[in-house]
């Protein structure tokens, strides 16, 4: 009903009714039919209402379907890894942040999945849950390099500094993967996972101290540690004969090729320490060092001290004995050196296979002779230390750069003849052009 007191401006009557018949309700005078007021549509403010559309009508911005799917994948990864709730929440936050960023909004779906994995990785690192990038790549079934690239882009975008992962921390999680408990393999070859982990961690710590771990990928090192630990816990003939290949097959893990080299390096370090054991009579070689591993690990600090002392004494002795003029000593040292190189080479050729031991012995003799065989004057300091990073001990021979232009001012005269030598004669150019045409024609005819 119309409000009381309203009068029609046309005839003055107060008989005004609400007319709802049409699309908008109008107040109409019943007597003369004139419209008193028109309603919302006519009285809309010019230029739109004062309240904006987004405030009254638009719903909250929903994440797009791909983002939701990504979050679900992220949750699945977290569940597989069985991480804390906090890590899951943190990684979800990061994912939402990163997803919206311009460098990730338009990448392929596969990369977005990798991004989800990287968010989990960074959250784990920040909250002290050790996992390696290799694990994430395995879970995502992606190339580790791609994961690395996305990871680095992500931490730059989100401005995070995450601590690195310690290999010894990851060791436990890694050794769980090896299926060699007594339920999976025969009793002879089975091993309790706790013992295995403990021994493997000790081996990795020893490797870290002797420069094997720094700069290398962690997974082959862990694999080598588990293998050696497994062998040394019960050094029977059967175990010693089992190669890394077969061990990985048995434990149902993928073999990593660098693990062979790591095994050799670790055995070398163990030999260096094993030599110092007072109650071992025979020489300790990479072949028989596995039996001594338990003792070595148990007394490793004492053995380390002894080894360092012996090494220092040996160095002092060497310096004292080489008081003769350096040239003569170098010459005489070179001769036995060259002879020791010869037997090394056929050994190296024979031992192509997993038997890095022969190669190893070669290296050991090199270390003992303690001279340099390359022509460069700077001595290889790695050979003088007891423990040094393997890349220093086996330094690659660098191609000696010819000392070229020195004292070039940059403003010298450039001879015409030199420049001419870079330009084709007209005949050459013609021949070249003709040959190119012929080749191009030949290709077209072929295809």
């Amino acid at each position: 009903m119309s409000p009381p007191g309203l009068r029609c401006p046309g005839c003055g009557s107060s008989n005004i009714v609400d007319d709802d018949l049409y699309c908008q309700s109008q107040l109409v005078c019943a007597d003369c039919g004139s419209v008193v007021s028109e309603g919302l549509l006519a009285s809309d403010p010019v230029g739109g209402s004062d309240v904006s559309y987004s405030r009254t009508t638009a719903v909250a911005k929903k994440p797009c379907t791909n983002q939701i799917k990504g979050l679900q994948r992220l949750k699945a990864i977290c569940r597989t890894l069985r991480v804390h709730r906090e890590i899951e929440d943190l990684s979800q936050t990061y994912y939402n942040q990163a997803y919206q960023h311009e460098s990730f909004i338009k990448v392929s779906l596969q990369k977005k999945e990798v991004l989800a994995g990287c968010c989990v990785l960074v959250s784990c690192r920040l909250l002290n849950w050790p996992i390696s990038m290799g694990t994430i790549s395995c879970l995502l079934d992606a190339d580790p390099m791609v994961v690395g690239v996305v990871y680095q882009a992500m931490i730059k975008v989100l401005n995070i500094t995450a601590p690195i992962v310690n290999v010894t921390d990851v060791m436990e999680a890694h050794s769980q993967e090896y299926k060699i408990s007594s339920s999976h393999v025969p009793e002879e070859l089975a091993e309790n996972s706790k013992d295995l982990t403990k021994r493997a961690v000790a081996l990795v710590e020893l490797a870290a101290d002797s420069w094997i771990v720094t700069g290398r990928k962690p997974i082959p090192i862990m694999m080598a540690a588990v293998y050696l630990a497994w062998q040394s816990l019960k050094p029977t003939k059967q175990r010693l004969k089992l190669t890394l290949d077969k061990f990985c097959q048995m434990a149902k893990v993928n073999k990593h090729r660098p693990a062979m080299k790591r095994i050799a390096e670790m055995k070398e370090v163990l030999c260096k320490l094993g030599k110092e054991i007072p109650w071992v009579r025979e020489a300790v070689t990479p072949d028989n060092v596995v039996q001594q591993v338990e003792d070595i690990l148990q007394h490793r600090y004492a053995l380390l001290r002894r080894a360092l002392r012996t090494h220092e004494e040996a160095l002092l002795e060497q310096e004292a004995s080489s008081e003769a003029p350096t040239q003569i000593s170098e010459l005489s040292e070179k001769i036995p050196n060259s002879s020791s190189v010869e037997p090394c080479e056929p050994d190296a050729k024979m031992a192509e296979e997993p038997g890095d031991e022969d190669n190893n012995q070669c290296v050991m003799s090199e270390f003992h002779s303690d001279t340099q065989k390359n022509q460069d004057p700077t001595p290889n300091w790695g050979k003088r230390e007891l423990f040094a990073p393997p890349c220093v001990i086996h330094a690659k021979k660098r191609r000696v750069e010819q000392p070229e232009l020195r004292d070039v001012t940059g403003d010298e005269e450039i001879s015409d003849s030199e420049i001419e030598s870079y330009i084709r004669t007209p005949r050459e150019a013609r021949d070249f052009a003709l040959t190119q045409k012929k080749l191009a024609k030949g290709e077209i005819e072929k295809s």
Partner: protein
Amino acid sequence: MDESALERYFDDSIANDSNFRLVEELGLQSPAPHVEGPTPFPQDSSYLSGKAGQGGVLGEELDLSFLPDDLSTQESTAQAESPNLDVSQDSGIGPDCNSQDSTAANTHQGVSTSGPGTSASPFCPMTPMTPMTPVTPVTERSGIIPQLQNIVSTVNLGCPLDLKFIALQARNAEYNPKRFAAVIMRIREPRTTALIFSSGKMVCTGAKSEEQSRLAARKYARVVQKLGFPARFLDFKIQNMVASCDVSFPIRLEGLVLTHQQFSSYEPELFPGLIYRMVKPRIVLLIFVSGKVVLTGAKERAEIYEAFENIYPILRGFRKQ
């Protein structure tokens, strides 16, 4: 206000003692302990031109040839550049700087960069009144000099080029437009490679020193000239310098990344070296466990030396574990 005060101070000193003349010259080039960066000290040119204006006497008596010898007493090779001189690089006193316009540089360019052998001046730079930049004492310096491995420079030849024609007429050129839109040209001496674009711009890589890079770029420009294009040599600029060296002891990268977390990035699963992004000077260093260090991102040689001198004490800290 500061400018005139400083000028007056130096003018007085000159009037007082002839010895200080050279000292002030050196002192002014290294004005204050806190001056950093390549921005030229605004007083330099005014002071020098003022000096020249004071009468040819001073200009003639100024003998700057002592500078490289005196400050580089430790180095004995011709290639050795004293890191001391990096503070004076902005004024062109450094022996390698070759593109400054100050009068000092002009008089200095006649002096060759051969190190020892030229007479050592009896002048001692350690006079008490000298406002010199504090120099790191000799015993603390590393004694290791990074060797330059690669210089990347660009130059504008100033005219559009017909790449097909160049590829046809030049022996040392290759051009595969489907793969890359530039001609790849190589010369033997200095052993370098150039990318020549149709706009006339050129990138020259592979040289082992700034002068070699410039010489190589000029040779490429001459080749293009000889092929008939009106090539010029505009805006030659060194864009990047890469150097490497060896500290000869192993480095605990894990420890380094823990203590310098905000600068370092170490991911052994991705790359065996540690990537250290130094803020001042802005250089990226790749540090490896073997003790080898690669420095890159520099536009000037001095930045490389400064960066290495900055990182060396840090690395020393991780030596004995």
